[in-house]
């Protein structure tokens, strides 16, 4: 519902409390949403599926979810409509916010060595395993034998440490944390899977008011642009809605926040997912 109060539309956005979503928090603080007559409330959600459910059930007007989750929703006939870019890979291995890590003394030296190993991802049949398979394939390995297990990001470093898995996929702040504690990166799956990968997007439902969606998109895009230009303010913002330790915040690699959605990368992800059997078709997500 878009209740108007004081001329402004009340909007509730479901957003995961991670580094990726810093722009919306920063943009809210900077008044970009007020400028577009949007009275924004940011509700933290636990993951992409919860965000999508929330939008479909009208609890949120907008939300943030990764490409694969959105593709899956679309394929199952859920009425989701992308309104703006969310977060993108930096495209530079070694400088990205997502990596596959191994122990310092691990025999695994490159992405190709991951073949046949046990690798943790936060969710199976999602963007993690899809991009890792692509990276391994590009590095000349055979991804079909990789044994993926589900482990939430926070629990993955411990599992790597006590040898429960051979490699872990994590995103910031866990990448920096683990690297500083002696882990070693063997693959930068977002950067290496496909060029300039669009990882996640803001979306709404097809039934949403077009004018409001437009204004929200504008506000988001301004926020993305501002965040891209002011990394220091982004790091400050992180202290407000996450509990990441300040010394870690100073170290983490920030993602890219372009205003443009890289449509080719979305299609590429969809193709890969289809090849891996995660999706049955290639739904069109972004017109």
């Amino acid at each position, binding site marked *: 519902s878009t209740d108007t109060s004081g001329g402004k539309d009340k909007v509730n956005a479901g957003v995961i409390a991670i580094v990726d979503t810093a722009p919306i928090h920063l943009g809210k603080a900077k008044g970009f949403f007020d400028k577009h007559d949007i009275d924004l409330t940011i509700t933290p959600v636990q*993951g992409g599926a919860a965000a999508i459910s929330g939008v479909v059930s009208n609890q949120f007007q907008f939300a943030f979810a990764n490409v694969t989750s959105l593709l899956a*929703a679309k394929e*199952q006939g859920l009425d989701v409509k992308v309104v703006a870019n969310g977060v993108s890979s930096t495209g530079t291995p070694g400088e990205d916010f997502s990596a596959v890590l191994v122990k310092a003394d691990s025999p695994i030296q490159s992405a190709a060595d991951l073949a046949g190993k046990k690798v943790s991802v936060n969710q199976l049949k999602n963007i993690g395993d899809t991009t890792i398979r692509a990276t391994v394939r590009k590095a000349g390995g055979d991804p079909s034998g990789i044994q993926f297990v589900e482990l*939430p990001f926070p*629990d993955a470093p411990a*599992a790597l440490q006590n040898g*429960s898995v051979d490699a872990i996929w994590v995103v910031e702040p866990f990448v920096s944390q683990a690297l500083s504690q002696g882990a070693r990166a063997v693959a930068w799956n977002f950067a290496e899977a496909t060029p300039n990968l669009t990882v996640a997007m803001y979306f709404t439902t097809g039934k949403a008011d077009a004018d409001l969606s437009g204004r929200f998109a504008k506000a988001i895009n301004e926020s993305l642009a501002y965040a891209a230009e002011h990394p220091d303010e982004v790091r400050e913002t992180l202290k407000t809605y996450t509990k990441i330790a300040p010394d870690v915040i100073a170290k983490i690699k920030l993602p890219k926040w372009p205003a443009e959605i890289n449509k080719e990368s979305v299609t590429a992800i969809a193709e890969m997912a289809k090849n891996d059997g995660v999706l049955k078709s290639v739904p069109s997500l972004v017109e």
Partner: protein
Amino acid sequence: MRVVNALAVPLLLVGVWWLVSGGSFYLPSPGRVAAAFAETWFSERVLTDVLPSLARLAAGYTLAGVIGVGLGVAIGLSSGLRAAAEPVLEFFRAVPPPVLVPLIMLFAGIDNAMKVAVIVSGCVWPILLNTVEGVRAIDEVLADTCKLYGVRLRHLVLRSASPQIMAGLRQALSIGIILMVISEMFASSSGLGFTIVLFQRGFQIAEMWSGIVLLGLIGWGLSLVFRMVEKRVLAWYHRA
């Protein structure tokens, strides 16, 4: 007559479900769920997902029973031990299993041992609490009789607390199934609970509901077995 009696309420509920389910994405009609059920579970999934889950459930449940009853008897018999142990137990009891899992993973790794440990960590409470209370509630005259004749603990304590222990075991059965699902939300790549979660995240809602229905059926089936056992164990109690 008994069959009619047992089926009336379930049929009524399915009817209600049918009526309210019209057109909702998250609540598909019973027909669609039934179709999804046949498609999803009459396949090799039974071998790869359902049976391993049930095996872990059996292991966890048995372990919880042994620990719960053993510890419960000890705690129930000694008020000193109870005073010391209760706060610690209550502490762990109040910690939600999902946040306890990472801790368990630190000690038990991420394989079957962890999942069984998660099941135990939830199942043990109703058994433990009921055993403690059952042991505390032993008839005084009976307890005195035992003291006099030096009759071993087993006879008095376990049997006379058995109605309450059975209540705990009954509770634990369904909690075990729930924890089987929760344990498979972590560090999994197969299992009944894992499959349900996967369906949920993939927005395959009819399939997800068919998994929930399967959980219910498993619970119901196990409770039938349980009742048969209980009928024997508590025959003296129900004066049958």
